[in-house]
């Protein structure tokens, strides 16, 4: 059994020696055979072995690689070609090959790791090491616009599935030697690599250690991408509140990095994880800061409003109509009573019915194949809304209430927080149906207690609001940009002053 495989960086490997660790045999045939065996050659069709004879030094050699993830042209042009054409006799291999980056590995295991990452291994007769030629070329998308976090004003680049593109997108924004990209392998079988980005002179060491520890403590065969990793490293796995921020915008990731947060990147993930996350980071959107001060705060007010509308409208309707009819003006009460006259269900059932219908439309709309997407919209809006009212299954006011709540929920941009709000809504509806406003108040108070008790990587969920920390006070509202001169104190950054 291989124990936790742990790498500090690509070059410096600290892994415990095991029986499977095989040194490279100077015998060319043996080594080649070992590679072939490791990759089940020739059953494995995309594993390629190119035998060649190096001119000049007159040695046999072979280049092995997986041709689907390797740039064959690079190998051909900068490795095979110079090797074959070499005439000089006293020359090092490093001097023959003109490829831009290469290194040597002393064990077969190390070499296979590189081959798996798209590099080619060069085996030379009589040498007890293997040359690794960097020529990886994974297929993937180019940089595209963000799908889920679109903005009107501001950059429109999004992370894609290639991690090096993603790192490059970050480096493009922080041209600083203090930006560290640490990497480590976190799964045993698939050897998934996680890249931890932070600013050396800002990020808190304890926080870094905490994250490192948690990332490296994973003992699993495969973690395909960040969405899965998020669920491995978060503190409360059953909590309704997310505690790790997930964003696809490099500009957002960078602004967090500059504040002393830590960003995790992974291959195959068109996004990044930001740690630690507070409630406010889910509440904010990238555009809040791109828009001018009054406009940005206006959208913040709208979002807060939609937060409360989503959570409370349906619940308040249920509570007021079932228990507190004295609270509403007679006109409104009579209007509600009139629309409910022919509805056979109690208000609670009516609301839950429509809420579920709305959730169904949303879920179905998401999963439906694009060509029939618009049909779903028509079916949802017309059949469920109009016809249900005409059939006296629900009252028109309920359609308004549910539609308003549903619409408002989209103003909460973060997908995790969006789910949180939608689920909490049901909690409030049932509390309202059973106990009226009293029940809602009880649930709200309990929810506040719970939120205050939450922590994300040691950072209280509602900080810097409560507990209070030194910060730029970018919570419900934001301040004018020049006044946001402090990094968030709850991260305990090495340098708190931004300006």
């Amino acid at each position, binding site marked *: 059994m291989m124990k936790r495989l742990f790498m500090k960086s690509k070059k410096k490997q600290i892994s415990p020696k095991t029986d499977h660790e095989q040194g490279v045999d100077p015998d060319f045939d043996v080594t080649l055979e070992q590679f072939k065996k490791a990759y089940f050659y020739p059953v494995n069709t995309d594993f390629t072995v190119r035998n060649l004879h190096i001119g000049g030094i007159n040695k046999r050699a072979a280049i092995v690689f997986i041709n689907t993830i390797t740039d064959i042209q690079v190998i051909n042009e900068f490795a095979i070609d110079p090797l074959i054409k070499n005439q000089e006799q006293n020359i090092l291999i490093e001097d023959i090959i003109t490829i831009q980056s290469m290194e040597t590995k002393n064990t077969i295991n190390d070499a296979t790791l590189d081959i798996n990452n798209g590099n080619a291994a060069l085996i030379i007769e009589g040498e007890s090491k293997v040359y690794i030629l960097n020529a990886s070329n994974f297929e993937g998308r180019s940089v595209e616009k963000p799908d889920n976090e679109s903005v009107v004003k501001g950059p429109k680049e999004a992370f894609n599935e290639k991690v090096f593109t993603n790192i490059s997108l970050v480096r493009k924004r922080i041209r600083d030697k203090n930006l560290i990209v640490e990497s480590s392998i976190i799964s045993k079988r698939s050897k998934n690599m996680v890249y931890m980005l932070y600013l050396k002179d800002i990020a808190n060491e304890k926080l870094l250690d905490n994250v490192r520890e948690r990332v490296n403590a994973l003992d699993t065969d495969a973690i395909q991408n960040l969405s899965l990793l998020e669920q491995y490293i978060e503190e409360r796995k059953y909590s309704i509140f997310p505690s790790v921020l997930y964003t696809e915008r490099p500009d957002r990731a960078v602004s967090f990095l500059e504040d002393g947060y830590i960003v995790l990147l992974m291959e195959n993930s068109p996004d990044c994880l930001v740690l630690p996350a507070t409630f406010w980071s889910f509440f904010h959107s990238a555009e809040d800061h791109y828009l001018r001060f009054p406009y940005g705060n206006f959208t913040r007010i709208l979002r807060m409003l939609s937060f409360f509308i989503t959570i409370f409208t349906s619940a308040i309707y249920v509570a007021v109509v079932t228990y507190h009819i004295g609270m509403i003006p*007679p006109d409104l*009460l*009579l209007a509600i*009573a*009139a629309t*409910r006259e022919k509805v056979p269900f109690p208000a609670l059932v009516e609301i839950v019915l429509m809420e579920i219908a709305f959730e169904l439309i949303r879920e179905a709309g998401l999963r439906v194949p694009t060509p029939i997407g618009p049909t779903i919209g028509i079916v949802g809006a017309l059949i469920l809304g109009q016809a249900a009212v005409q059939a006296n299954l629900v009252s028109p006011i309920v359609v308004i209430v549910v539609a308003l709540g549903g619409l408002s929920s989209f103003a909460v941009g973060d997908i995790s927080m969006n789910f949180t709000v939608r689920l909490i809504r049901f909690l409030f509806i049932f509390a309202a149906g059973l*106990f009226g406003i009293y029940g809602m108040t009880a649930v709200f108070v309990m929810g506040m207690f719970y939120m205050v008790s939450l922590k994300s990587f040691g950072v209280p969920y509602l900080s810097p609001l409560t507990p209070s920390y030194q910060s730029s006070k970018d919570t419900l509202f934001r301040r004018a940009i020049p006044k946001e001169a402090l990094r968030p104190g709850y991260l305990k950054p090495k340098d708190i002053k931004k300006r």
Partner: protein
Amino acid sequence: MRKIPIIAKILGSLLCVTILSGCWDQKETEELAYVTVVGLDKDEENENMVKVTYVIANPEVGSLAEGGGGGGEPPLETISFSASDFITSRSLANTVISKEITYDVLRNIMVSEDFARDKDFIRWMYDITKEMEIRRDINLFVTKEDPSAFVQNNQPKMDTGPHKYYELIFNRGQDTGTIPPSEVGQFFRITEADADLFLGIYGTTEKSDNYKRDRDPDQFMAGELNYEGQTNTTQFAGSAVFKEGKMIDTLTIEETRLSYLLSTTMKQPEALLVALPDPFHEEYEVATKIYREKDIQINVNLKRDKPSIHATVPIKMSILTNHGMTNLAKYRDNREKLKKAFEETLNKEFEEFIKKTQEEYGSEPFGWSLAARKKFRTIPEFEEFDWMKTYPEMDVSIDTQIDLENFGRQTDLPKMKEVRD
């Protein structure tokens, strides 16, 4: 035995708590009959019974909602019957009315003048404080006739919803100062304080025969306005005066307005439109818009042998008509004269009305006892003083201070001589 996981225990007990303690006796909105007005009257035969009148609003009227409908239904249902009180009458009404009677949207309570003048009236009124559903800010109004007749005669042509009609007409009446603000909560407060008078709204659907053509238009009460046209027969004007929880008299519109201006507790109307005699030409009257912007200042002096009250009434005034065509805007002297004359007129009216309250009622509806109460260290001392007993003997002086605001859009008027040239 398998161990039950703790989370299941917690969830199970939470489920039990919600199921056992939920409010399962609640009624859906459409299962209720909304009483918007309750009428109370003496039962002729049995003095331990009360005749209850209900005005039940039909929610479906005026609603265009698809789910609603009910196009041809009447806007309201009324029912009158005798019951031992208007709380138990709710279940009695269900022998006729199909839905549960609720007082949740009850906004008005109507009592007949006959009943209000009864010494036992207060006993029935205190039932309101017992009932959970009735709010304290509902309006109390007195009808000249039997409430059952009132609700049958009251046929508003346009605001057919009963809750809407009363809300609108009372709000407007209070804005123009023709009827007093008349909340049941205030009724209880004033009755229990046992010092001031309470003013209730006075209304009727019957035309009074004591209408006289030569009377000042402000001198009438409900039923005395003579009008023609196809409209409702109901009139709300003037106030019913309650002393110690019993109605003793009625006030005209003018007296109600004077009470507003002198009151320390009533919410002031938007503006009062009043015609006052023109000091420059005796044959004309000047229409004015007056309102009290600041609080009335009351100086109570109890040190002297004969206690005295001095009240300063700050009034803002705009001139609306000027039939005498005196140029007021241009000449300061004219303005001063006008101001002085009006101040005197108002002082006189105030003093006459106060005299009436002292002599006829033995107390006042202005809430002045509250100002006097400040002079005592303890409530028992104030009760000892007995406001109702001392008020009729007091020296009351009023100082009206008019602040002229404007003289209309066109401040300058043409000279009569030039026009008639």
